[in-house]
């Protein structure tokens, strides 16, 4: 695969405004095939909004979005997911009254296209159950598989977020602060799982924990007030005075 291959995701002049507030300001961005890319920036920089536009959860105000070269700017969220775009939510978004297993299986069923089947009981789809179970196991949630999500501690709910994303077998995965709210032992597990993912999956991670970012990312984009401040390899970013100013000037990150 050459470096000039069509990127997994690309945005051109992407903009978003909420009323008078500009949250995305002409963002030109490439997520290369198989990338390990981090998006950082202070609180309120517009990172989540950017991800929401990529997935189609929010319409953009202007600009274009491409996935593997295909223009997906106006495509529905479902269609993008079906084309292999997966994401996790910064604010946990689960089926709270369902067991962990169902949370993961639901996505697999969509991926496998069985969600419209009306005759055979869901519990009879053992391949889906088994696969859901294996993703939960990877996240260390084997014993919690049958527990209703609402009854699980927040840290474990965060891990289910990731298990669901894994179940979608995405080609491009957008992780919005996956480790926020996760106890540090388990955040190590998140890194391990991410490290094990097939190399051809492109991953974009939003993260405030710089240690995690520098361990994981091969490329970093810095977003400030909706605009790309700079982009480069981790050591470049680490030594960039403007980036330091942003972070130190803001009193660090949380």
């Amino acid at each position: 695969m050459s470096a000039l291959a069509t990127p997994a995701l690309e945005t051109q002049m992407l903009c978003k405004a909420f009323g008078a507030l500009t949250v995305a300001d002409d963002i030109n961005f490439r997520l290369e095939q198989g990338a390990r890319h981090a998006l950082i920036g202070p609180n309120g920089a517009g990172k989540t909004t950017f991800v929401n536009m990529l997935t189609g959860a929010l319409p953009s105000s202007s600009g274009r979005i491409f996935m593997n070269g295909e223009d997906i700017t106006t495509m529905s969220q479902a269609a993008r997911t079906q084309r292999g775009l997966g994401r996790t939510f910064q604010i946990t978004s689960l089926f709270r009254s369902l067991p962990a297993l169902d949370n993961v299986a639901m996505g697999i069923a969509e991926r496998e296209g069985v969600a419209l089947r009306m005759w055979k009981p869901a519990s009879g789809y053992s391949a889906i159950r088994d696969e859901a179970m294996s993703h939960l196991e990877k996240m260390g949630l084997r014993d919690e598989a049958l527990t209703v999500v609402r009854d699980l501690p927040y840290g474990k709910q965060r891990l289910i977020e990731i298990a669901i994303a894994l179940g979608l077998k995405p080609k491009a995965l957008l992780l919005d602060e996956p480790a926020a709210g996760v106890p540090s032992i388990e955040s190590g597990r998140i890194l391990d799982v991410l490290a094990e993912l097939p190399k051809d999956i492109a991953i974009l991670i939003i993260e405030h924990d710089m240690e995690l970012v520098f361990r994981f990312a091969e490329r970093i984009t810095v977003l400030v007030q909706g605009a790309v401040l700079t982009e480069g390899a981790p050591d470049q970013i680490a030594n960039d005075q403007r980036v330091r100013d942003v972070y130190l000037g803001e009193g660090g990150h949380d």
Partner: protein
Amino acid sequence: MMHSGGYARGSRIGVLEILPWLVAIAAFFLLPEYLSLGARILIFILFTLSLDLILGYAGIITLGHSVFLGLGAYTAGILSVKAGIHDPFLQLIAGAAIGAGFGAITGAVVLRTKDLTQLMLTLAIAAIMMEVGNKANWLTGGADGLPGVQVNPLFGVFEFDFIGKTGYVYCLVVLFIVWFFVRRMVYSPFGAMLTGIRENTARMHALGAPVYKRLLVVYTISAGIAGIAGVLLTQTTQSVGLNVLSFEIAGDVLVMLILGGVGRIYGAFVGPTVYLIAHDELAKQFPEYWSFGVGFLLLIVVFFARGGILGLIDKISARVRKS
């Protein structure tokens, strides 16, 4: 346990699930003088079940579900009175098809919106159909409705008799068949998916589910089932009137479902049974107090027993088990 179905839980038919059918059969033999009330209860169970599919499983709030009952009811009435088609099964199929068809058309519109707008649309559509039923005299008989509906004997043998024996058994069999279908659906991946939409629509989108289309499917099915209930109502009462399209009916069915318990199939069995028996006993004697009672009951359910009667039973049995 609020929901049934899903990937984690089994789907075998439990002992308790046989109970309603035993009760229904016992009622046939033990309470012959109440069979027409019995048939009415069975019909409303069917109607409530259809509402449970969209409200309890898919989370769509509607104030106009009466439309589909009304369409089914008028389909049977018009077929018999205006077109001379008295075959019960033809009427049944036609009512289901027209209910489902109208469900698909209105669903395509209603499901694009949400919240208050959606509520308003269901209300406005119900109002429009009421107006059509009222004004299209030549077809619907207007305010007088269509009396004198005829239905051929079932299989050419069983007359719809005055006591309502045939009607009762017929309704029971139709309900059983629909229940069986609905139960499979609720336990299937489709049912799990509907629960997902109700629980967290944003997540469902992110999983790649075209939510709108899915809702349209269930809305159409629900409307078809409501249409069947409407046909049964006309066939067993041998007449149809404007009241099947009224807000009262749309409200009643909501009350019945809430009373029984939302999103669990059997709430739709318990609610109408309790409601209609109470109605039969009380409403004629104390009309004022009846509607006051229903209103008060709604308040009680909303503030103290969101899970309805079945929810209460769950709570009590959980407490008994603990101690």
